[in-house]
């Protein structure tokens, strides 16, 4: 059997493994290749052993081609951050009875000793830093083998179902041999496909939005082994079947990269909420007690410390890299049913409480890595301005450096989609509700209709309203005031830490509401920057769909060119320029006649 010498993609900037920086593969190991063992290593190998070099290894690759009865992994965990991905693929690819020998690693605990592998792999020999693992039984993901049958699960709420119709229609169009669509919760009355879907989890109440309970219920109710859990804003690519087949079976917690086009011509692409990374969260010292656990198990994701957890930096992750602190952001999970059920989401957490990070980190600790399928993209039908900054998005490049990235087309005066998924009527009504609640009757004023049409008027109205509010300096009431401001005036999520700063400003610094809530509010500034003139609120949900036109094709080409040129920095797909173009076109939500 050959000796495979792996080499990282240089652009990743991982610590080099060369003759000058690492010891050679020992001869006594190399000779085992002659006895039928397959040796896999990043270490330099003497040329006389005729190693087969696999270059440009990165996190978008699968390693299922490493198969055999006797596999020797030399220094894999020491030399490569990609070790979890390699070991996951190899562990699933080998047959029952085969062995994996882990050699040359300094750490005492090996990846294959983690919970996920415990039932299937047994350490049969252990001596001098070498451990031999024998595969006794198929792993959980292998029990759900095959890519023919899929369950698509969508957690939904009772609001307008126009965009849900679009997402479900696309799933119905997919060329998947067997599929079922599960909705967790009852959709709005205008949902068109009640006869084509199964509705589960109607007993799960809201608010708060128990998104984890919903996703777990979808997994429990799924009839097929492959799960694709998406939010109702995720528009799947037309060639979903081809994408998942190219990626291969026995995948771990997987997602696809996502794009949101801010304009009507597919000209202004933004990477939008797909996979993220935070280096600091896991090491943070502030911890609290989770809602469902005892004081001996403290977590950085406990509700009490969310405002502090939020201060850790979060970036979009690069698909070429792997890190144990990367996580799918929750809007799309592609996962085997049995794998999900072995590591379900924590139901004590609710929506926007870092439930996605908690889940991915717990999975990673168990031995289930999070990764990206690089053969396609999804598009987001709508966007939350909080996640879509006009100044750019922090995205890690291939080297792992987070940089603010934005397309040059951002500045072009092209017709845009609505910035906030709230209709103008509802927005005005909500602003009036806020005024009625917080402005004393004697100075209450009627809000002009222009305050939801033009950004300058909107801002002037908000300033006017805030200069008239009266709120008691009581913790509960002040927080309710900020929450109502978020829900009825800004229509966007405000960070937990920002809320805490505002409350502290009011209390300790006697801050003026206009200054704190408007002039020092980046989220509101971003709204105005996104739409300096107007079109903040939507007139119809159909505004989010694209029309087929020559200019759209041109716009998509421009975006494909931009994304292809910056493939190592913004969005990585395994293909050339035309692949990018096709991926964007196949995932564009068009208006139907």
């Amino acid at each position, binding site marked *: 059997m050959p000796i495979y010498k792996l080499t990282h993609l240089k652009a990743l900037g991982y610590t080099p493994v060369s003759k000058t920086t690492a010891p050679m593969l020992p001869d006594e190991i190399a000779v085992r290749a002659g006895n039928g063992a397959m040796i896999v290593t990043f270490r330099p190998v003497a040329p006389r052993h005729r190693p087969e070099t696999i270059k440009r290894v990165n996190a978008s690759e699968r390693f299922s081609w490493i198969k055999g009865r006797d596999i020797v992994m030399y220094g894999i965990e020491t030399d490569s951050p990609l070790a979890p991905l390699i070991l996951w693929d190899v562990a699933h690819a080998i047959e029952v009875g085969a062995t994996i020998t882990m050699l040359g690693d300094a750490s005492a605990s090996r990846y294959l000793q983690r919970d996920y592998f415990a039932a299937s792999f047994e350490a049969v020999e252990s001596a001098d830093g070498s451990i031999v693992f024998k595969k006794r039984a198929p792993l959980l993901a292998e029990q759900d083998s095959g890519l023919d049958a899929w369950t698509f699960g969508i957690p939904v709420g009772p609001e307008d179902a126009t965009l849900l119709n679009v997402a479900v229609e696309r799933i119905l169009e997919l060329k998947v041999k067997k599929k079922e669509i599960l909705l967790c919760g009852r959709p709005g009355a205008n949902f068109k496909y009640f006869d084509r879907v199964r509705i589960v989890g109607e007993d799960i109440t809201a608010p708060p939005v128990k998104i984890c309970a919903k996703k777990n219920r979808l997994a429990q109710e799924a009839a097929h082994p492959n799960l694709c859990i998406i939010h109702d804003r995720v528009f799947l690519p037309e060639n979903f079947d081809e994408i998942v087949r190219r990626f291969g079976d026995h995948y771990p917690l997987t997602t696809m990269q996502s794009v949101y086009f801010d304009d009507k011509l597919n000209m202004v692409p933004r990477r939008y909420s797909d996979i993220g990374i935070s280096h600091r969260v896991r090491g943070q010292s502030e911890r609290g007690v989770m809602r469902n656990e005892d004081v001996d198990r403290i977590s950085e994701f406990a509700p009490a410390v969310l405002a502090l957890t939020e201060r850790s930096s979060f970036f979009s992750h690069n698909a070429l890299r792997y890190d144990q602190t990367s996580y799918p952001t929750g809007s799309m999970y592609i996962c085997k049913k049995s794998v999900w059920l072995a590591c379900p989401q924590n139901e004590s957490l609710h929506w926007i409480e870092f439930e996605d990070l908690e889940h991915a980190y717990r999975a990673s600790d168990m031995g289930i890595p999070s990764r990206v399928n690089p053969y396609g993209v999804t598009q987001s039908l709508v966007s939350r301005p909080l996640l879509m900054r006009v100044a750019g998005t922090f995205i890690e490049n291939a080297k792992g450096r987070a940089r603010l990235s934005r397309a040059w087309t951002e500045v072009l005066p092209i017709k845009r989609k609505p910035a906030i998924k709230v209709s103008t009527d509802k927005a005005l009504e909500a602003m009036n509700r806020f005024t009625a609640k917080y402005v004393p009757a004697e100075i209450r004023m009627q809000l002009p209709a222009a305050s939801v049409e033009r*950004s300058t008027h909107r801002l002037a109205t908000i*300033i006017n309203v805030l200069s008239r509010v009266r709120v008691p300096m009581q913790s509960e009431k002040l927080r309710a*005031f900020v929450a109502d401001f978020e829900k009825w005036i800004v229509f966007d999520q405000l960070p937990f830490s920002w809320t805490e700063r505002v409350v502290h400003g009011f209390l300790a610094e*006697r801050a*003026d509401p206009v200054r704190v809530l408007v002039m020092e509010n980046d989220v509101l500034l971003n709204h105005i*920057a996104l739409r*300096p003139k107007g079109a903040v609120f939507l007139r119809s949900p159909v505004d989010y769909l694209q029309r087929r036109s020559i200019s759209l094709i041109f716009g998509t080409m421009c975006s494909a060119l931009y994304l292809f040129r910056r493939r190592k920095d913004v969005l990585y797909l395994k293909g050339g320029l035309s692949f990018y173009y096709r991926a964007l076109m196949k995932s564009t939500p068009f208006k139907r006649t």
Partner: protein
Amino acid sequence: MHTVCLPASVWRADDRAVESFLHSVAVCDSAQPVFMLADTSAILRQAQAAGADHEVRRIEFADWVRIGYTAEGVLDVERIRNDCAMFSAENIVMLIANGFESDLIVRALHQMRIGFFSVAQWPKVIAVVCDDAQMFQVAPPLSSAFYLQPTVLNPIAAKRVANRIVKDSKSLRLFGKSIGVLPSLLRRWSAKRRVAQERKANRGLGWVWEE
């Protein structure tokens, strides 16, 4: 919770009338909190009008101040906050603060504000008795001590603020974060310069004595 600023002269002359006045304030709608600066005639007019449904709790401001450390005394912050947490919801709290410096009273109000922050049920009325000469210094901070109060802007001022933010956002959109924030930084810097220049001029004129 209603807040009342009372002159010490009336308090000294007829404390029963003052209490009676506070009882009549306590029956006002608590959903529409009021702040009032009570003058002598108003107190005397209301003297017989109301019953005594609410207990009046008197706090001597002197109990909140430790004398001896500095000339004007030092606030006992812990005691102020504890007392605030102990006030009963239906009470009328009367703070007898005459004879103390306005600054000290205002600082005590700030501590009371923090003390009341996590209290779910506030007393009906907080009344502060201060020297007649201090009324106009104590009244404004007292009116906004426990509430975010309206400070209505005229429409032009609101538009001016809005336009400035729109300009900032436009430069952010056009030039991105690194260059886009320059205009707002420049404006802040020039505003600071202007303020510093004015202070310098005022110092020359003798309006500012510090430094």
